């Protein structure tokens, strides 16, 4: 009797253990997660950022590369459309953008891969897309805005994975989208200026608290960025772009994190087809969403390091886009601390000139710095004799700087839009936005004087305030 009891207890405990494993079973390593779009949808080359929101009836599916058809699993069957899956650091969840019902806006959702339960992260009147996990397991994503004067664009937000603590982190008239995380902990995003004129796409990097936003990579003339830029194990960054000077062919470009401008390589140029998106594998190969020619659908291919693309899964009824591969993460991004203080509704900028500019100019006599806001010049003041300036200005206020001569002709600038977060401090060396020059070790003349308080603290514009309504409907689990 006693023996039987022990056997029963052991059996029950084993069941509990095994069921625990099964319940918590996530997709094993080696699975690919993709966005699947019916083949009748027209996938044009510029389908990145907000334009991908035109995709209807898309689904997120997973499959195993060695037996794709038999292992195919639809992960978002209860959604009218779902796109842009991004894996969590532990590969147990994905975040994605989806419409629950056909008429809904695109919102950000979380899916637990072990039990397929979903939770809505955002619920608001705008379209939100391109979510990505931050190193501290918060989420970053983009939401659209429209403004009668400044046009339309999108802003990057962060929030906890339950949707709380929502914060906008970009504050410029740009379309910001396609964020990924660099190993240094920063967000790398694609950004296009939309006001006062439309600019070419750039890769900007910023800290997750919205500080130190700056140009990370200026793509070569004639190219337009198509995909998210992703970093691999060797700290190379890959993205796809269309080469407007070469018959609009899509091209896969690689550059190094360490030295972006001296390392550009064209990894692959499609002769007849298009590359939509990519995902680096730890082996050094890439998974690419590739259309061999315009007659075929986009399939998933493995592009090896010799530049050979081998098909993994092609289906004439569907396009396969936005691959993500489940395997150990190539790096653990740093959790960057934030020095922001809400009590300080301002930040400071210190600008120092490069020695070569000082030599070239000789003197900046009669020249002024102008601080340009969205609605005109906010301030102007004389530049110091060493070309430096030191200003304090309102947080979250988009501005551009320019230097003008005594005839009010622009000598340098205007810079791209920039803003400061609460209590942020920024430094710039020279007017080249690539900022490839370290400052000379001199006391900038400007800091021997009080800071220039730039008037006209503008409240956040473009409808990108932290909108409490975005939190509605968030946080509860469905299904």
């Amino acid at each position, binding site marked *: 009797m006693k023996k039987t009891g022990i056997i029963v207890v052991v059996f029950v405990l084993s069941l509990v253990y095994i069921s625990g494993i099964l319940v918590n079973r996530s997709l094993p390593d080696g699975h690919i997660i993709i966005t699947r779009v019916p083949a009748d949808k027209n996938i044009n080359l510029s389908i990145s950022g907000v334009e991908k929101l035109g995709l209807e009836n898309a689904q997120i599916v997973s499959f195993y590369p060695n037996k794709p058809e038999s292992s195919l699993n639809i992960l978002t069957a209860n959604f009218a459309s779902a796109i842009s899956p991004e894996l969590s650091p532990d590969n147990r969840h994905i975040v994605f953008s989806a419409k629950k019902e056909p008429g809904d806006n695109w919102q950000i959702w979380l899916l637990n891969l072990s039990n397929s339960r979903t939770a809505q992260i955002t619920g608001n009147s705008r379209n939100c897309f391109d979510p990505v996990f931050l*190193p*501290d*397991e918060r989420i970053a994503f983009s939401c659209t805005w429209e403004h009668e004067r400044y046009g339309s664009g999108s802003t990057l937000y962060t929030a*906890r994975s339950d949707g709380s603590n929502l914060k906008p982190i970009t504050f410029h008239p740009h379309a910001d989208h396609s964020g990924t995380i660099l190993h*240094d*902990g920063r967000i790398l995003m694609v950004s296009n200026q939309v006001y006062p004129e439309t600019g070419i796409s750039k890769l900007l990097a910023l800290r997750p608290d919205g500080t*130190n936003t*700056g140009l990370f990579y200026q793509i070569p003339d004639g190219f337009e960025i198509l995909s998210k830029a992703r970093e691999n194990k060797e700290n190379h960054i890959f993205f796809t772009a269309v080469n407007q000077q070469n018959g609009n062919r899509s091209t896969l470009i690689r550059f190094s*994190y*360490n*030295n*972006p*401008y*001296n390392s550009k390589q064209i990894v692959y140029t499609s002769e007849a087809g298009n590359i939509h998106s990519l995902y680096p594998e730890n082996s050094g190969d890439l998974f690419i969403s590739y259309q061999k020619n315009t007659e075929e659908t986009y399939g998933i291919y493995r592009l090896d390091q010799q530049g050979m693309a081998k098909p993994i899964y092609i289906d004439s009824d569907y396009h396969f886009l936005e691959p993500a591969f489940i395997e150990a993460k190539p790096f653990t991004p*740093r*959790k*960057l*601390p*934030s*020095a922001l203080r809400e009590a300080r509704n301002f930040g*400071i900028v*210190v600008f*120092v000139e*490069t*020695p*070569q500019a000082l*030599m070239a100019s000789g003197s900046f006599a009669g020249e002024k710095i102008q601080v340009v806001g969205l609605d005109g010049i906010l301030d102007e003041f004389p530049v110091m004799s060493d070309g430096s300036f*030191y200003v304090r200005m309102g947080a979250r206020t988009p501005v551009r700087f320019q230097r003008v001569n005594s005839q009010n002709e622009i000598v340098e600038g205007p810079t791209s839009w920039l803003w400061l977060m609460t*209590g942020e*401090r*920024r*430094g710039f*060396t020279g007017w080249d936005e*690539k*900022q*490839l*020059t*370290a*400052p*000379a*070790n*001199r*006391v*900038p003349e400007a*800091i*021997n004087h009080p*800071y220039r308080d730039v008037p006209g603290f503008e409240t956040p514009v473009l409808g990108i305030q932290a909108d409490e309504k975005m939190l509605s409907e968030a946080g509860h689990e469905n299904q």
Partner: protein
Amino acid sequence: MKISNRLIVLLILGLLIFLMGYRGYRWSLDHYEYMTIGVVTGDILNNREAKIAAVKCLSCHTYTQKDGFLLQFAKKDYSSPYNLAVSPDNRKLFVTGQESGVVYIIDLTNNQIISRISVGDLPHSVAVSRDGRKAYVTNQWSNSVSVIDVENGLVENTIEAGGGPSGLVLDQNEEFLYVANTYTSDISVIDLNRGVESKRLRAGNYPTGIKISPDGRHVLAVSQRSVLVEYREPPKTEITVINTGTQRVQQRKYFEEAHIMEKVDFTPTGDLAFTTLVRPRNLVPAVQVENGWMMTFALGVISLETGKMYQLPLDEPNTFYADPYDVRITPDGKQAFISHSGGDYISVVNIDNVREVMRHIDDGLILNAENDLTLSDEYITKRIATGSNPKGMEISPDGSYLFIAERLSDQIAVLNTRTLEYEKSIHMKGADQYSLLRKGEQLFNNSGRTFQNQYSCYSCHPDNHEDGLTYDMDFYPGEDLSNVQTLRELAGTSPFKWNGNNVSIYMQCGMRFSTFVTRTEAFSPDDLNALVGYITSQISHPPNLYRSETGELTEAQRRGKEIFERTRTNDGRVIEVRDQCITCHPPPNFTDRLKHDVGTATDRDNHTEFLTPHLNNIYESPPYLHDGRANTLEELWTVYNDDDLHGVANDMTKDQLNDLIEYLLSIGSAKYYN
């Protein structure tokens, strides 16, 4: 006792235990937060209980106790290979074991240690005679040079040198040895025939690296610290050129905006000399780390033919290669290797490309080269990862191999200079595992915990000391400037920082440090334990050069001590207790650990009170005052004490002030005063 009474007593007892336990728990939480506020980060550690779980009471109360009983369990013995020399026949490798006080001779045919020779304290560098029969070793903390009979593995003579001897080089006839004395900032010329120092030449500030030109006519010595410059001017660091014929200093050259030049080497033709250097940005407001706003690193090149000097960056726009230490050039003059002791990398330099870049600079095709973060791509051909803290290197005479002393991995790596692949590692037979304190030492010396690996603790605290610079770290640029303080023997000197805001090293190195200084992810609790344990228990002052071995004071020092402790002025007036030196500077650390207004605040300071600094080995730490305004101790009273707020001193005669300073210079480690 009635049952009801017993129940009441039990209830009261239970309540007391609960309250005591609860109060004790809250107290421990309060104490923890006070000592370490912000130590750990992240959402999961936002509540106090979780923080306590992450950093346990024992973490602070065991390994951070200098000489504590439990410390022995956190410590293991290592060799810590520091610098190297290869015998001319390519068969033996000589290695100084900085921590073990031993010189190791390794048979390169089988990579076995064949001899361990005990020398003085902190052996630094080693040189070998052409016949391979003699080796010379500098003992940095014994102020001497050991002469080793290689065949018998014995120290046959010990020759007195200056203070803190480090780099050394034999002249061409091997009759004289040139020794860089780091702490006394001079160079000993040692007559090897007589076995005595025959000459002492003034060098730059803290000379370390020294090398003789291929033709034997010149010796170059590079320095770690900047010479004294005008306040708020960039550092500049001396290269001392010695004529070996006259044994006199022929020229003093300076690398501007640079310091911490650790080593130097010549091309085989002798037309170029390479040195490693650090380019701090201490005068630029520390508003960000990005784009080299805190520090960059460079290869210093001196053209011996034209006299021109170049600083060629070693960094890249998004990655920095911290703390370059040694530089070695191959016998064919084609390649140079640079060890980055903070980055754990070797940079491989193409010297032909360096020459090309120099031509472009001369022709005006490259401007502002020293600050150009993309330039290194022109001459750095490869970065090779190393073990922990690569320091000294040596190339085999045939040029085939590069030997790298991986100090904190306790091993020598052997790199094939043709394939640039490692061929083997020679373990120094230290402890097999890294102790907690060793891990702390590795963290201290590694730049991986700074945004984009830009600098390590060592970068501002070379040799666990300070770099002699004042940084602009406050939120508002130009305000509350901060003179870097030494990390030697901090136990018992808390709180820290000039404003005294950091009550412990845990706080100093914790969350605020990562938020405002390293600008990247904070140390994990385990790493923080290791780092704090290392800093508080393992860093000592070198022997005080102004103090006799017996500790007896000189006559002048004794007079100075009386002035330090005096209670009356020269004219007999009583000096109030608060205005006496010894009140705020009592032994053993010569600090009362309190803040005082001594009239040194400027209109750019947001505080008038500053923490009393300790005075142990204070002679090593110029400049002085919180903002580094005083270049010498004397200036503290002759320039910055008009109102006698920094002790009553204006009645003193010049002789008395000299005596006081003599005494201050003699104040050594706190252990002498306990």
